[in-house]
């Protein structure tokens, strides 16, 4: 993980870029981070974790058979939690009622088996890293 990717990481959403070629990694990173390439109205504030995979090991393509998946809305709420927002602030950002936010947060905690918001963010990050595939 390079220092250059730090500001984006704060946004809470991550896209793992798998590439051994540094030039291609950098190109991918720019692509995802440049606001112009990620439409402002995109439901995702994506950021990028750089990986040269050298220390990760040769891994299998993940399969997500029976596990709980998040809905797109839950992913947005998760990103907002990662930004340190309260339920009230999340409601304002996503233009939904605080009651609905609370519902999504509870669902997230349940699916992740997390007791706190911080734990949810950490677990979700791990989940995201191991379950994003370039095709």
């Amino acid at each position: 993980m390079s220092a250059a990717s730090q500001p984006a990481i704060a946004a809470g959403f991550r896209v793992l870029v798998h590439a051994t070629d540094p030039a291609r990694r950098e190109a991918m990173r720019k692509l995802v981070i440049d606001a112009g390439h990620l439409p402002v109205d995109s439901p995702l504030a994506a950021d990028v974790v750089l990986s040269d995979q050298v220390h990760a090991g040769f891994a299998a393509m993940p399969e997500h058979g029976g596990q709980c998946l998040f809905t797109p809305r839950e992913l947005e709420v998760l990103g907002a939690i990662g930004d340190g927002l309260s339920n009230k602030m999340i409601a304002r950002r996503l233009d939904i009622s605080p009651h609905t936010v609370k519902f999504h947060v509870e669902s997230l905690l349940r699916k992740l088996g997390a007791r706190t918001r911080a734990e949810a963010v950490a677990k979700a990050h791990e989940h995201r890293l191991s379950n994003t595939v370039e095709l």
Partner: protein
Amino acid sequence: MTELIERFSSELAARTAALQGAVAAIRLPRERHVSAIVWQGGAVIASEQSLPEREEFDLVLPGGAEATARLAGRDAGTNIAALRLSQPAAPPVLAPGEAQAGALALALGADGAGGVSARLGLVNLAGPQWHSLAGGLIDRRIALDLRLARAEEGGPVFSAAGAFLGMSTLGPRARVLVIPSATLERIVPLLLKDGRVARGWLGVALHPVAVPDALREQAGQPSGLMVMSLVQDGPAAKAGVVPGDIVLSVNGAQALGFRRIAAQLAAESIGRTAALRIVRGGSVLSLDAVLGMRPAA
């Protein structure tokens, strides 16, 4: 009993000595090295993930002779890199064999000075074919019950009978995997000939998500793969896909997992049109993408 153990031990040592002509070292910066297999026809093969981005490599051949080799091609999908030696070598003929769970496996590595290091363990797992994260198809899932130093990755693995099972590779959490001899025989000629292995490409990073309840009936499936990012001017981008779209199917294959989609991206798919069914903004729509070729590494 003592005799049996002694015989077992000396047989292993003899086998190691007989096969060490297949093991070379590829030099890395800072006095480090990784292992490689001396292949027929003046080629050397290694673990793709263990090699830095370079075209020329310095090698130590079996016996200690120094040599140079040029990268012929690398395939991250199957973790195989092929190099061409600048001078001929005379490796022993490797007779391929099938791994069997519970059988002994002898993994050889290079010591960096022309000799070998050896590891003995069980074939922990000998399963069916699998897809790597990088999109390659590996003919069998073979894992070994032994540890391997980083410098030993890329060396040959043999059965107790001396049959060549494949190339050692470090998996997640340093688990030792074997790229089967069948996969090597399939991929190495392609790398030597074309310098790469062609694969179809959408140019997207995908993450599984649940389809929102309101759309589940229309979508006809409980989950899909959300577009987290896409390569500018890549096949999906050209087709009008934007981040946040949820891919439901590609050519009718439901995006319930990555493997089904990866299976739609074989070499033959390059240049063909793929029908994408996606969810965007509360409705289901169809887009056609002309599949490209996955860039190297």
